[in-house]
């Protein structure tokens, strides 16, 4: 991705200051939440795997801005940002990370396996690319029921090389499923760069082989993501079948917490942070457009810090699940 100064001017025209502030707030919440999660991991309060979303915030915030009630979303194990963006409670997410009773899955799912029926968030899946046919299946259910909801099916550039992605593309297209395949291309599948894993690195173009339209999007620009999301959503709602968005993004942190980070240079990461940070870009836009003052933004920062601290406190204080929980939720009971 060519580095350039933070700018999102071309998509700025029809965005209100309130919307800009909302995106700023939503992205900042994800970043501060993830920083806190990293901290709790370091303290041993979060175990196992923990994949942080820092750097990629504009992807989910931009796409959620294009969604309506009843739309569904499903993703991989790097899922904290998606949950916060669709309105799930930070307390419930953080308490799931610490494996406590107050977590979304009562502590039984963990970082990679969380769900919210209320917010139409269908996980949180730990098997790379498994969520892609599952997402197509969610879209199938809406088409079958005859409503105009769409499903956002997120996966990474690593998952994009899995065979089941293309099985899902094929069926989604022949059945006109209202599924937006969102490739979050952060350029590294764990430690393997896209250059080392494929000779066709323009992932969205692979959709053409199945007759699926798509486009590449600047994932460091929340307004560009939102604009592309609106186009994709309109395509799906109109019954024209699936759509592919390849969103070029970047993760600042390691693949998981135990990532030695030897596959890319510190300078590469720093350059991205300095020049393309999605939150800084909106911040600059808010200030230069006189939509907010430094003090306004400081107040938002403070508010978000308080929300995140509250979620961490809740996650520490919520009790561990009762031992009886070991034996619940294995089978659903037949409703009488």
């Amino acid at each position, binding site marked *: 991705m060519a580095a350039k100064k933070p700018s999102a001017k071309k998509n700025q025209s029809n965005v209100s200051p309130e919307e800009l502030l909302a995106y700023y707030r939503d992205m900042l919440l994800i970043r501060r939440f993830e920083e806190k999660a990293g901290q709790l991991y370091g*303290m*041993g309060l979060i175990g196992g795997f923990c994949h942080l979303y820092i750097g990629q915030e504009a992807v989910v915030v931009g796409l959620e801005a294009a969604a309506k009630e009843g739309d569904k979303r*499903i993703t991989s194990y790097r899922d904290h940002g998606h949950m916060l963006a669709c309105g799930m409670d930070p307390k419930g997410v953080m308490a799931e990370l610490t494996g406590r009773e107050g977590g979304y899955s009562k502590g039984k799912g963990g970082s990679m396996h969380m769900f919210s029926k209320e917010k139409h968030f269908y996980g949180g899946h730990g098997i790379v690319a498994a969520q892609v046919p599952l997402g197509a*299946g*969610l879209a199938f*259910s809406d088409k079958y029921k005859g409503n105009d909801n769409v499903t956002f099916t997120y996966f990474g550039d690593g998952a994009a090389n899995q065979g089941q992605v293309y099985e899902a593309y094929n069926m989604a297209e022949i059945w006109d499923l209202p599924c937006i395949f969102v490739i979050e291309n952060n350029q590294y599948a764990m430690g393997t760069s896209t250059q080392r894993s494929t000779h066709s690195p323009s992932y969205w173009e692979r959709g053409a082989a199945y007759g699926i339209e798509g486009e590449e999007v600047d994932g460091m620009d929340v307004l560009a993501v939102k604009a592309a999301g609106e186009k994709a959503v309109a395509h799906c709602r109109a019954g024209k079948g699936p759509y592919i968005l390849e969103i070029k993004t970047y993760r600042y942190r390691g693949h998981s917490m135990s990532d030695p980070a030897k596959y890319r240079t*510190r300078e590469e990461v720093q350059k991205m942070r300095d020049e393309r940070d999605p939150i800084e870009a909106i911040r600059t836009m808010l200030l230069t457009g006189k939509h907010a003052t430094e003090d306004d933004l400081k107040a938002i920062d403070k508010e978000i810090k308080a929300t995140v601290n509250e979620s961490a406190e809740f996650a520490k204080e919520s009790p561990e699940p009762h031992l009886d929980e070991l034996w619940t939720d294995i089978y659903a009971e037949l409703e009488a």
Partner: protein
Amino acid sequence: MATEILMPALSPTMEEGTLAKWLVKEGDTVSSGDIMAEIETDKATMEFEAVDEGIVGKILIEGGTEGVKVNTAIAILLEEGEDASAMETASQQPASAPVPADKAQSSEDAPAAGMAHPAPETDTTPDWPEGTALKQQTVREALRDGMSEEMRRDDTVFLMGEEVAEYQGAYKISQGMLDEFGAKRVIDTPITEHGFAGIATGASFGGLRPIVEFMTFNFAMQAIDHIINSAAKTLYMSGGQMGAPMVFRGPNGAAARVGAQHSQDYAAWYMQIPGLKVAMPYSASDYKGLMKTAIRDPNPVIFLENEILYGRTFDVPDMDDYTVPFGKARIWREGDDVTIVSFGIGMTYALEAAEKLAEEGINAEVIDLRTLRPMDTPAIIKSVMKTNRLVTVEEGWPQGSVGSYISSVVMQEAFDYLDAPVICCTGKDVPMPYAANLEKHALVTTAEVIEAVKKVTYK
């Protein structure tokens, strides 16, 4: 307030590490994301970033120190405007070391299950009321009727698979269903088991009740990740919020002369998975009644059919809504001398053997499990308490077989009632050969069942 920076755990297993190098010094201002130090774990050297912004007040552990325990304070961070005096406050308030979750909870052992047993209670009500009219039906017709009745009853039920619609089913199970229900509900898929198993599972998360037909369960190995990781585990992983009410069905086990890749019995594989239910019927009435129960069940059900049985004819009750509950075995033949337990096509060997044994004066009790998860082990125990001898019969492989599970349950719960070791009659421990004579020997045989019964009855 000054805060302590603690030695972080950088992997799930890290307990201590080397603080290799500080990249900041006392007095430096840091902000969130700045790299503060390099830490070596047993796996790698990793960079450690600042979480909060502030000024490095004091470095407590020097660079190059080995064996620094996780959660030890390694530095003190001051807020803007704070001076060193704040550090004393920090050192008086050490961050409480979190207790590892697996050690925090006392694990009081549950008392061991009692050894002495009264005969377990079992459901022995007949499958249909006395006097019910019966009709003769093949397994194929009974299966189709079971699915069609449920599709008429619930419009969220649909059938999906290779050749289920226009071709009328590779084994003609779905004959006529496309005509009745239309292409929206009887759906031909491309040959893409992994993909359509995933799509169907996603559709079940979305509130539908899919029936997925695998042309045979051999091909479901391509889809087994979705069956187990996506369908069986989601209810648990979501804390009960959502699950997969669906049926995966198709012929399982050996057909005839189709070789190693098309002849595997998966009963023992799927039976092992919590979150799945597993049915493996023998008779046409059970194919129908269990299929209807499977479709209504709010959990993923594996429905293991058998190609050779498809054409067999049985009595089926002529009722409006005939269902068979899961977890209820059927006693096909009562006897006092030995218990023979089987399921699916294994029942053909069990019943044939029992008939021949009866001619020699040995009365076998023959139990058809019908479902393997849940399994009606009380019915087995109750019978063994009467006969004191047990033989199990299945076509699958011996190691980790259904029979080996049954024999362990019987050993634990009815040890004192056994007068002979349990014998598990299984398929041979070889890939299925093609040659007719070899194939016959690779499967379990009636002669082997008879021999096993004679052995446990010392005849």
